[in-house]
């Protein structure tokens, strides 16, 4: 499991983004001169005359190695920087050696170059070298410590590998696995680093201690849960699981539930939810947080309680409603709360009803869908008819998808509301509803849909009329075969093909009379499949 986590972490680190920028140095004439040496833009190889000036990789590394022993700090810094561009075991050894330089500038340059190797896929696996790098977690320079702590996921595989040893038992050589363990001095250094004076180091060690198989002591975690740095606090909260049942930790989380930063309080909600199974105190923390001054925190806590099956007081439900009504769009938290409102049961229906007027189309879409589904709204047109007047197509589509196939026996008045809609998608739905609407509604409104300006509405109407066999349907189909639009002709043909007694003769006659029509070819083919050759 740890290995998998390490791999995931390494993968995530390899996709770290990189940014660069411009600079403002003014340029003299020499700049232009040098351009001509370099050659064309995007050339894949440097010009030959430039290559000949350059030394080989071995020479470059050798020279840098010498520079690392130079008396001048600047030379040693430059050498350490340059070695970052050449990834091999020789440069690793040189750079690891430079980590003991008395100048922090050289040590910084060396550790940054080693990190560059790692980010370019070259890992140091030699255990003694890796341990040397890791030991710089105790360096006196904060920049070095930060860089080492950032590198922990990349050092783990080299440092924590299990091994094999040969022991002699009763005169026989026996191979025995040696579990991965951290050197005691490094373990002590790691435990100390949890409370490093620098917040970034503390945060990194907290993030990665699991990969190192180093357990965080309860007292240390307790101190970190009262850290003054928000990043450390957030990370510490994600690391409580192994100590979650400890009353000291529960108390600390309880205190954080009143933290002034909203992000921390939101994190507490999430941690309390996940730790609920370890200690009853976490449920109590959630209950207290339903009184939070921030509506978002309050709502998150309340819906989590509702998900546990607890009844949420109506005053809190009202506050959830206020929060959602005030939201300016679908953020992650709003989405979570919006969907979780279903867990509030009957109270939730009222919240969804209120949100059907929200300014955000995404929120309206979800609210309408949930409202209709939770209140069996498809049976009451008064509930859903306002939704199909929504200006946003996405909202209407959501509603229509919830209604499709569920609305039966629409009355003339109900169907009329759909037929008169200015939205094509609603009129298409109206045409689909002809299949199950009351007969008088079909009689009085079917013709309106048949002459609709939109082709899809007309073709859907034709298909519904033929399926329903409304009086005079054969005539409608035969007229429709004469339409210029292929979609209409196709709908009429399909309708006629379904009725062997009345439809097929009409279609046969049409094909005979209009052999050159676009639909006739297909009609002949379909008729021959049915054994009714013209």
């Amino acid at each position, binding site marked *: 499991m740890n290995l998998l986590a390490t791999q995931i972490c390494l993968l995530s680190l390899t996709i770290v983004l990189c940014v660069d920028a411009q600079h403002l140095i003014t340029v003299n004439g020499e700049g232009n001169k040098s351009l001509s040496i370099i050659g064309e833009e995007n050339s894949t190889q440097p010009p030959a005359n430039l290559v000949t000036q350059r030394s080989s990789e071995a020479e470059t590394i050798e020279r840098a190695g010498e520079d690392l022993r130079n008396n001048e700090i600047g030379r040693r810094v430059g050498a350490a920087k340059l070695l970052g561009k050449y990834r091999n075991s020789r440069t690793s050894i040189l750079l690891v050696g430079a980590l003991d330089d008395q100048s922090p500038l050289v040590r910084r340059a060396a550790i940054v170059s080693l990190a560059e190797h790692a980010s370019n896929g070259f890992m140091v696996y030699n255990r003694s070298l890796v341990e040397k790098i890791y030991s710089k977690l105790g360096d006196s320079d904060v920049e070095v410590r930060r860089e080492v702590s950032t590198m922990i996921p990349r050092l783990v595989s080299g440092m924590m590998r299990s091994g094999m040893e040969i022991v002699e038992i009763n005169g026989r050589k026996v191979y025995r696995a040696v579990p991965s363990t951290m050197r005691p001095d490094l373990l002590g250094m790691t435990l100390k680093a949890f409370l490093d004076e620098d917040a970034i180091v503390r945060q990194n060690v907290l993030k990665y201690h699991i990969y190192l198989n180093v357990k965080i002591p309860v007292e240390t975690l307790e101190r970190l849960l009262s850290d003054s740095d928000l990043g450390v606090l957030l990370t510490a909260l994600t690391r409580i699981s192994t100590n979650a049942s400890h009353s000291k930790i529960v108390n600390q989380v309880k205190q954080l539930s009143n933290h002034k930063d909203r992000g921390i309080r939101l994190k507490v909600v999430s941690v309390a939810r996940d730790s609920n199974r370890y200690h009853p105190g976490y449920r109590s923390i959630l209950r207290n947080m339903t009184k939070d001054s921030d509506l978002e925190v309050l709502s998150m806590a309340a819906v989590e309680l509702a998900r546990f099956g607890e009844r949420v007081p109506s005053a809190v439900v009202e506050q959830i409603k206020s929060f959602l009504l005030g939201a*300016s769009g679908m953020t992650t938290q709003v989405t979570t709360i919006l969907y979780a409102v279903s867990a509030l049961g009957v109270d939730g229906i009222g919240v969804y009803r209120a949100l059907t007027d929200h300014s955000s*189309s995404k929120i309206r879409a979800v609210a309408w869908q949930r409202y209709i589904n939770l209140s069996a709204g498809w049976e009451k047109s008064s509930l859903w008819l306002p939704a199909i007047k929504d200006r946003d197509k996405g909202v209407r589509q959501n509603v229509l998808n919830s209604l499709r196939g569920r609305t039966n026996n629409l009355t003339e008045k109900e169907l009329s509301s759909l037929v008169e809609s200015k939205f094509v998608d609603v009129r298409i739905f109206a045409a689909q509803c002809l299949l199950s609407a009351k007969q008088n509604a079909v009689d009085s409104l079917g013709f309106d849909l048949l002459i609709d300006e939109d082709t899809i509405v007309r073709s859907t109407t034709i298909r519904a009329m033929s399926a329903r066999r409304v009086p005079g349907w054969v005539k409608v189909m035969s007229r429709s075969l004469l339409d210029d639009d292929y979609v209409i002709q196709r709908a009429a043909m399909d309708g006629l093909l379904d009725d062997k007694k009345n439809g097929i003769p009409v279609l046969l006659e049409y094909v005979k009379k209009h052999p050159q029509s676009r639909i006739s070819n297909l009609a002949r083919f379909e008729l021959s499949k049915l054994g009714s050759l013209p």
Partner: protein
Amino acid sequence: MMKFLFFLIFNFISSSSLFVHGVTQARDGSVRVVQLLKEENGIRRYPDALPSLLKMMNEQTNARFDTDPLYINTLTDERLNENPILYINCDEQPNLEFSDEERAALRRYMELGGFVYLDAGIKASFLGSDLGHSYAAWEERPEVRELFAQVLPEKTFIPLPRDHDLFRIFFRGLPKNKDLKIQASQKRLPETVLNFVEREKWPQATYSFVGIKVKGRLACVASPICAMGWGRDEFGAWIPPISFRIRESAENFEQNLKLASFSGGTYEVTREDGLKDIIYSESGQRPLWVKEPNGSWRIFKYYSGEEISNYAHAFYSRLGMNVFLYALLH
């Protein structure tokens, strides 16, 4: 003072509720940003970026944005003209080819007062198809140039000067510790990084932007990818991690880099002053070093870590908010 002025100006503008001639804002008065996604189901590298930025603007300014961008997949979508800002992440589009109708619609949109933000509209040639890196070249990418040669043939992109209002309309200067939510006593960035950032990378919190004016108004800007710095998770922590590419020097370094072993390709990148940097890059590796037009050589070093990432995110978000707020006010 600046923020107070902004408050007044914004309230005035929002009360007028008109940004593009004859069109209105969202129903509740909030401004809806239109985002182009030519392929609705295409791979999106930073799907949460724009909603996060819009939410931040609602929290930190008096502007009111709908945090749901309105996604359109064609520029002829009639809803485009109902909203004042069009955001296009050029890296998220399969291509930047548009029909005659779409190009005409884009031109009309800008002429009517619409503002177009082309994120990743600048991209250095050596980055190739790597979408996750930015590099501050000072010219628009070739596809963008080609597109706008057809949309506004009489115009060309011009670099925005460092003192342009866009960089200071609301946020000014580089992030401080309080912006990063860390202790005042805590060291922000490694010294070399901070030095380079303040003097060269983002001086006075500026960045390489190019723009086109229409009827005297800045109607379109292009920048290196900024969206990667806008994302926040639900607890307020930045996502994803960002590292810095820094130019560094050292004693006797120019001679060393001239002679150092190298077998890759070279690339030219346009600088702010119009001259070219020569980037030395080896296949499969990050760029190695650069020869600058004044003849000096510097090596690229890569710095990563929580503090670096937080700093970059804070900068990009402040910059992004400035762009959208500028768009609203102009």
